[in-house]
């Protein structure tokens, strides 16, 4: 579960960079703009929350260690 989240934020970061690149190169029309900006806003939110959140649980890790 944690791994998939990591992929999500890494992917989010990369997708965001891609959108920025596209928009900077002027490849986005007014029609596409709203979709792209909406998506970018989601990605930014994912990335930003990643910087400030904590999602690991020490007890869970300890449980896993004992279970071995």
């Amino acid at each position, binding site marked *: 579960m*944690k*791994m998939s989240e*990591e992929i999500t*934020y*890494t992917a989010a*970061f990369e997708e*965001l*960079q891609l*959108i*920025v690149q596209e*928009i*900077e190169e002027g490849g*986005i*029309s*007014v029609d596409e*703009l709203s979709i792209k*900006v909406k998506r*970018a806003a989601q*990605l*930014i939110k994912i*990335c*930003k929350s*990643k*910087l*400030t*959140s*904590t*999602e*690991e649980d*020490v007890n*869970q*890790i300890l449980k*896993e*260690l004992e279970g*071995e």
Partner: protein
Amino acid sequence: MPEEHEIYTLKQVANSIQKAISERYNRLYWVKAEMHKLNYTIKGHCYPELVHKEDGKLVADMRGQIWKTNYDRISKNFSEIVKEPLRDGMTLLFQVKISFHPLYGMSLDILDIDPTFALGELHKEREETLKQLSKEGIINANKALAFPLLPKRIAVISVESSKGLSDFYSVIKNNTWGYNYFFMLFTAQLNGDPAIEAIQTQLKKIEKVKQHFDVVTIIRGGGGEIGLSCYNNYALAKAIATFPLPVLTGIGHSTNTTVSEMVAYRNAITPTELADFLLQAFHNFSVPVKDAQRILLQESKQIIKTGQEGLAQEIRVFKGETSNLLVAFNHQLKDTSRSLQLNSNIRFHEEKKYLFSKQEKLKHGSNKLHHEKKYLLNHSILTLKKNHANFQFSQQSRLEDLSIFLKQTFPKRLDKELDQLKAIERNIHLIDPVQVLKRGYSITLFAGKVVSESNPVSVGDKLKIITLNTSIEAEVTHLKNNENE
């Protein structure tokens, strides 16, 4: 029972050996040996077990002894130079006195340990570890790992009481950007031989739950710089190099970089620097995200603005064109209507005039016009004639008046003027000098001028006297004033 055998007491034998040895080994020797166990006692004396191995097999094993006074000196000197404590398993160079004691047997009385040799040995271990790791091709294995975009779940190998660890936490937790990390401490001794085993044990533990972590940090600091050669240990360095997560070290020392630090994904000089590195990694993620936000906003605005401007431009062009067209049509319409009006007016006027003239011509005949003109002419001539006659008459009568006036006044005036002239002529004749001279008067001149009050004469002066017919030269002989007579 063999009687001829000489019999010695044990003490005699022991004393003999002691004597022989002290005579044979009568100086000090430098001996290289591995100190298998130091055997430090509470009293402060040590009884180290010295061994010599060949191909891993024990080939010599002797007991040594270091008296407290020597040990204190040796240990202090060694630590200062080698930065390591005297510990089990080290190969050292001992200065010894070989001795035999009847009670305790053979022993090497250790008087000194050469720290330079120990340094060399440690260096050798470091070199060998490096060489071995290189040979195995794993020396850069950890560095070659992909570093997580956000190293936020951190397994910490350290000790709770470490000053370095509290520095590390303090920098991370006081970051002003709100970056949040997850830490889990795996306690392990970080100095000396025990560290080798302890760190490896914790690495194995972490590996079991590695999916919960992004990186491993080994943090030490504040504990002096003694006992760091453990990080040159082959087994430990290998465990770090081959660990599946990036290992970051912040061991905090100023001596030579250890192999463990060299093979780690990243080595920070201090735990604080390690904390800064982790914060920087977050910056490297955060800044592009912020930039992306800014660029997206800016570019989107630009795209919309460009679109709006394009539209506005189209509208302007459309408006301009249509209004031009309208104006042109309007003008054309006006021109047509004006010219229509003008032409019809002219036409109307012309027709009217034409009709009118026709009408006039019809009304007054040309005879009447002729008659009127003739009458006017005759009338004018008559008036002219009359005026002329009047004028002539008035001028004539005025002339006649003037001539009468002249005829009446002029002769009277002429007679009067003549009388006046005659009287003047008579007077002039009377005062003529010739007439005076005729009456017997003369003129007396002195110096060309008439003798008078302004031209007086003295006795002897020559005078000229003029009469009617002669000029007389005379001289004054006597002067007499007439008033006195």
